[in-house]
């Protein structure tokens, strides 16, 4: 293919893609002798120097435990950690920093709510409503909770494009619905859910709304109050920060009413052998020494993303998505899985006669990193009648040329398999 089909590059003013790429040291490495084309951003993103520096600065300059000591280092670490919490608050548009709980990631955040809120609140005959496009992390904790409490898990179905059928969603709501848990953006299909609309429907029935924002925060400007959600969760590593740190946002009055889910040091007011009183949120939910440097580095990642600006990132990623969607049509026997009208920069597809793992291996030989598998969303694969898909997912540092590299590699796969 010598034909150049590269679309015009529309970048927001001040969005210097070459400079952005220079900020990510790993992007200059080669894979199997070819330049790395990293298109597995929905699984995890690469890290900018700002994040690497945040770790180094902390360890080299002021590391200590937090909320524990009167000495200078402990104060500095505590301040840096709390500053990161403030950065998260600002990024999510939350009202108060004590609505931000640091956890290990989205999975832990959802488990926290399922255990603490659910264990306290959910009874037999109650229902939890999720959608057919949820990641296992926003399905299994609710399923397990329902089993424990004798409650019922309901699932709003998807249409052929990969959109939640809103009439069905609304039909499944009732006074029995206590929690609605939905993804902001589907990791396997790219669908952006109409969260505000769904939250309004849920609230009319008195249900709470948890939004799994693991794929939301990297691609969309989030405002938890505008979304009208009660809980919002995300993972640091999917937004250019470290793995092992994530966030639960919860409305203050909800967190205040919730019991601790893990107990120990750092989350108490006073302890005797007879009785312990617990600290207010967020510390009530942060038992033990937290991932201090991870929280600080997450703050640095969000600062980095916010400097470029999510509107600019979203605009660029939608150019990448449009170009990828158009060029994928030219690959023989390729079927897109997930064609929602409102989509983030994720393309999942099946190729006739070639299993996704073979596609993944062939692409890897060309330096192109994609995900092949069920993307921790087995019910989604079942819904669309495929055992697995190949998924290319884009991030703020991807270039149009990388879309073209993906297409060339797919042509090679087709050539090899006939």
């Amino acid at each position, binding site marked *: 293919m010598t034909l150049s089909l590269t679309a015009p590059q529309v970048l927001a003013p001040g969005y210097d893609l070459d400079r952005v790429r220079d900020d990510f040291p790993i992007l200059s490495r080669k894979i*199997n002798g070819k330049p790395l084309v990293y298109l597995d951003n929905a699984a995890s993103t690469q890290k900018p120097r700002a994040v690497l520096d945040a770790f180094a600065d902390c360890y080299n300059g002021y590391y200590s435990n937090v909320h524990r000591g009167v000495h200078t280092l402990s104060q500095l670490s505590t301040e840096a950690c709390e500053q990161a919490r403030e950065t998260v608050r600002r990024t999510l548009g939350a009202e108060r920093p004590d609505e931000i709980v640091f956890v290990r990631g989205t999975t832990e955040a959802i488990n926290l709510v399922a255990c603490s809120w659910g264990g306290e609140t959910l009874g037999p005959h109650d229902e939890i409503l999720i959608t057919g496009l949820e990641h296992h992390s926003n399905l299994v904790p609710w399923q397990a909770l329902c089993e424990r409490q004798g409650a019922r898990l309901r699932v709003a179905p998807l249409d052929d494009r990969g959109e939640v059928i809103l009439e069905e969603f609304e039909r499944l709501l009732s006074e029995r619905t206590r929690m609605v848990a939905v993804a902001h953006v589907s990791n396997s299909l790219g669908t952006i859910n109409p969260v505000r609309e769904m939250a309004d429907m849920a609230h009319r029935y008195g249900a709470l709304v948890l939004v799994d924002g693991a794929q939301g925060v990297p691609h969309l400007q989030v405002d938890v109050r505008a979304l009208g959600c009660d809980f919002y969760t995300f993972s640091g590593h999917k937004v250019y920060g470290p793995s092992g740190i994530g966030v639960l946002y919860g409305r203050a009055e909800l967190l205040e009413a919730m019991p601790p889910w893990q107990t120990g040091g750092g989350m108490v007011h006073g302890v005797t052998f007879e009785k312990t009183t617990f600290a207010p949120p967020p510390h009530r939910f942060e038992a033990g020494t937290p991932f201090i440097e991870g929280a600080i580095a997450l703050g640095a990642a969000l600062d980095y993303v916010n400097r470029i600006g999510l509107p600019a990132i979203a605009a660029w990623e939608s150019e990448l998505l449009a170009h990828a969607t158009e060029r994928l049509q030219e690959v023989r026997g390729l079927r897109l899985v997930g064609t929602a009208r409102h989509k983030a920069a994720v393309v999942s597809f099946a190729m006739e*006669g*070639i*299993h*996704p*793992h*073979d596609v993944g*291996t*062939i692409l890897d*030989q060309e330096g192109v990193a994609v995900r*092949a*598998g*069920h993307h921790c969303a*087995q019910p989604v*694969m079942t819904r669309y009648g495929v*055992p*697995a898909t190949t998924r290319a997912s884009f991030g703020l540092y991807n270039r149009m040329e990388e879309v073209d590299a993906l297409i060339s590699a797919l042509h*090679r796969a087709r*050539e*090899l*398999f*006939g």
Partner: protein
Amino acid sequence: MSDLRDLYQEVILDHNRAPRNFGQLPNANRESEGHNPLCGDRVRVSLHVEDDRIEGIAFQGSGCAISTASASLMTEALKGRTVEEARHLFRGFHDLLTTGGSEDGLGKLAVFAGVREYPIRIKCATLAWHAAQAALDQQDHPVSTE
């Protein structure tokens, strides 16, 4: 593309396109399913074992080219063998993939030598063999073909 041709040899592509002994085995008396939860590949191997000899063998399931071709070539290699010969063959095949063992005595199965360069794909090539081994470990029993 020479590297990829080492992995995806013509024999492998052929068995992937047209797997042999694919389907149910009517008189099977041993059966086992191999499942790789990591990638979702599933293969069900059915055997008809008579007097310690594999009289019939078939497989069903879905997977990548490596796992499908491996299952297909395995059925060809095992038909007519004694149980002991089958186990010996698996050891040889396994060594070929993991420690670079000799291709001697493996016949057509030697086409999988290239898989050794792709450690993540070794499980694909051995999935059907593990299922066959588990089936051989069983006592004879009638197999439901539901």
